[in-house]
């Protein structure tokens, strides 16, 4: 997030798009609801589904799945056309405005209505509401990123925010809400194929030299493969061994059949986890890890706040914290890692990660610090790009709308959108073991609109079969007005209903994120 969770509660307008906030980030959802109910904020929701926030919204734009760029360009078309944009800000703090203006010119409200189904008048109201606010925050999540145009979607959100001078002010910003507790931290720490900690490029000689010196090794300057590119590399024979720590790609990968083939082809697979999951079943060696309550460390939340994780109970059997396991393995492999505590590792991180340099354990004993926090007397950073963008001027990216990679046709007439539900989480490893959560949400459900259900002769609770070009699954129907006609929604928390057998592995060319939000399917009563 460019800005902070607290600011959401006290801003003037909130534009939430592609985020089912009350279910997936409930305590940010509560901030949004308090902003609306108690502090007079206005809320615009852009989402094909009638999500929980719609009840609190002033305007709800129900676009067809995957038409986000068109809608966002349409908003900007109106804002520029009606001269509602932040001229001085655009002049002094951004560049490439003309390119943007040129591209959005053709996204008139009428044209956008044609593409997205959003009524032109609603689009105008939303554009004015967002543009006229002194401060307005954009919130988004996987509904924006999990498209093959995910990067374009993100850029369009940034364009809109910059156009109205909303970046670099309290209560503004473009705010991606991270799905998993430490995605932010994993990225910050360089668990990415092209960067070291703090996003220092592996291909950059200075950066590499710095790490070579600190670690006393020589390092490769060639960026590695992403998670989504890995299966092909295995099948082609370039990757022979895979070490997986704390992940279950057999459940979360866009094309599990393909991945399974790849994992089986590996010469050597190691899985290190708290449970023997679907991926672990295929491993040659499985190592037992301690869970979050059994170890010390830090997580970095979606607003860049580095917070403590504390050991509260002992790990079962001989399970160990992941950091200890890696240290032991590295030592055995001839590179001694002798850390006595997680804090000692953090102190090393601080020397190599400028944005974390000021984050000591003693300072975050009570409340976490938000990076960048470059020195021990720096208070942390509530919002980014104040006075100036990190790169100097904010860059507009003129983006054209591209339809989803796979659209419904005669044979596969429905759109399938996938995501999470309040009572379950990710691949279910944790949440499906919680009695209360299972009571509330015991099995996978297919959300289907009442009109569609009627046409197909599907009753509440009846088993339905969902087929795509890639596979078939069956689950019970939940008839609800939440998805629009022609769209069904499924979650990916249940391995017995492996929704990712259906989804389209079409990747965003830059983000390498699969298009989980749109694929074409056939729906039948079983």
């Amino acid at each position, binding site marked *: 997030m460019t800005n902070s969770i607290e600011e959401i509660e006290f801003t003037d307008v909130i534009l939430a798009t592609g985020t089912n906030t009350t279910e997936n980030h409930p305590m940010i959802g509560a901030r949004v609801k308090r902003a609306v109910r108690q502090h007079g904020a206005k809320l615009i929701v852009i989402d094909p589904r009638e999500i929980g926030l719609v009840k609190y919204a002033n305007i709800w734009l129900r676009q067809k799945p995957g038409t986000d760029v068109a809608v966002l360009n349409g908003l900007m078309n109106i804002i520029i056309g009606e001269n509602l944009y932040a001229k001085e800000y655009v002049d002094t703090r951004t560049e490439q405005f003309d390119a943007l203006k040129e591209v959005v010119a053709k996204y008139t409200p009428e044209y956008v209505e044609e593409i997205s189904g959003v009524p032109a008048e609603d689009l105008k109201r939303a554009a004015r509401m967002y543009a006229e606010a002194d401060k307005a925050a954009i919130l988004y999540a996987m509904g924006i990123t999990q498209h093959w145009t995910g990067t374009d979607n993100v850029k369009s959100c940034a364009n809109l925010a910059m156009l109205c001078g909303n970046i670099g002010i309290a209560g503004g910003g473009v705010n991606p809400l991270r799905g998993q507790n430490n995605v932010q931290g*994993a990225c910050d720490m360089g668990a990415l194929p092209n960067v070291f900690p703090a996003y220092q490029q592996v291909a950059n000689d200075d950066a590499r030299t710095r*790490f070579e010196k600190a670690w006393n090794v020589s*390092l490769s300057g060639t960026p590695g493969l*992403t998670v989504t590119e890995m299966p092909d590399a295995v099948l082609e024979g370039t990757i022979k061994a895979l070490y997986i720590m704390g992940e279950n790609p057999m459940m979360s990968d866009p094309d599990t059949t393909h991945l399974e083939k790849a994992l089986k082809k590996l010469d050597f697979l190691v899985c290190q986890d708290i449970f*023997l999951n679907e991926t672990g079943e295929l491993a040659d060696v499985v190592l*037992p890890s301690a869970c*979050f309550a*059994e170890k010390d460390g830090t997580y970095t939340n979606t607003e860049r706040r580095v*917070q403590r994780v504390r050991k509260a109970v002992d790990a079962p059997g001989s399970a160990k914290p992941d950091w200890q396991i890696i240290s032991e393995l590295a030592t055995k492999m001839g590179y001694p890692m002798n850390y006595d505590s997680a804090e000692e590792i953090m102190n090393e991180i601080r020397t190599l990660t400028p944005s974390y340099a000021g984050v000591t354990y003693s300072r975050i004993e009570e409340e*976490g610090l938000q990076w960048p926090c470059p020195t021990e007397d720096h208070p942390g950073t509530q919002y980014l790009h104040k006075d100036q963008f990190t790169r100097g001027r904010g860059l507009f990216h003129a983006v054209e709308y591209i339809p989803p990679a796979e659209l419904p046709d005669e044979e596969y007439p429905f759109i399938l959108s996938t995501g999470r539900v309040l009572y379950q989480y990710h691949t279910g490893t944790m949440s499906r073991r919680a009695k209360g959560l299972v009571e509330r949400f015991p099995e996978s459900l297919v959300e289907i609109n009442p009109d569609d259900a009627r046409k197909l002769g599907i009753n509440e609770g009846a088993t339905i079969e969902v087929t795509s070009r890639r596979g078939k699954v069956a689950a019970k129907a939940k008839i609800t007005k939440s998805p629009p006609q022609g769209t069904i929604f499924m979650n990916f928390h249940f391995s017995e209903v492996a929704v990712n057998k259906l989804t389209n592995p079409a990747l965003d060319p830059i983000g390498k994120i699969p298009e989980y939000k749109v694929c074409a399917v056939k729906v039948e009563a079983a």
Partner: protein
Amino acid sequence: MAEKFQITIDGREIEASPEQTILEVARENGIYIPTLCYYKGTTNVGACRVCVVDVENARSLVAACAMPVSPEMVVTTDSDRIREARKLVVELLWASGDHNCLTCEKNGNCELQDLIYYLGIEQPRFTIEPPGYPKEDTNSMIQRDLNKCILCGRCVRACNEIQVNEVLDFSGRGSRSKVGPAFDMDYFSSDCVFCGECADACPVGAITFKQARFAGRPWELEKVRTTCPYCGVGCQIDLNIHKGKIIKVTGNRNYGNPNLGSLCVKGRFGIDFIDDPDRLTTPLIRKNGKLTEASWEEAIGLITEKLTSIKGEHGPDSIAGFSSARCTNEENYLFQKFMRGVIGTNNVDHCARL
């Protein structure tokens, strides 16, 4: 901000600002005024009148939680008159419910019990007449016994004003009045999303956490502050430990950002996995096609041998690693250091794209 001024509480000259209540000024200065219906972060309703104090020149006692301060106000927080008024309130509450502390989960951590002790009440002067409501036991997370409810309304405000879930409300009037979801529904069939805010807010044993029932007395618990393992909000949670076992998760209204002590159902009720019998407790190695228990030494030895030979034969870029968005920063850092520095490849990523 408007200018500060002086007021007097219990003979002490104290600085106050106009937007503050008597209670807030008193608390800021370490002066105790008992409360029941007051709940930080919600509307001051001034309903229970346990917090009454004497304000010079006011005709009757005033509720400290709802009364704004004004310049030169002179406040007395304790006197016979005040005690009598508070006693009356507390005795009425006591008598109107089934406050059998022997079996109450809140025993030792109950604000009514504390008040009865503080005010030194031996027996209520009224006949004890509990309303005789059935207990709600519809789910494994939250249980309700409205026979212990003192109608302070904290749960209603927590649900509506803090979580804004808009599930709870008062229904009925006077002694027949009741809190709960609309149409007298139980939690499970209502729109309740089981955030548990109401249970954290309840000062007595009327709304409690089911799994913690008979699992440990309040004074036997140790609380460990940590960060929720689920979504990216990173809520601060308190793990409540009893004899080495986590028995429940509570919020703490004194914690600041990001969540100010509020939780959702996952952080609150989602951590049973910690002592699930399926947890891995020992390394496993595939032998004759089957995963078999092994020692750490064996497992680490085998990994070392395999990775070293694959690296030797096919080069470092034939090895790849997935780190995890659920591991700590320290672990992610070490993992990429291991892949880059020890294996010698940049083939390291995590599954956040998925």
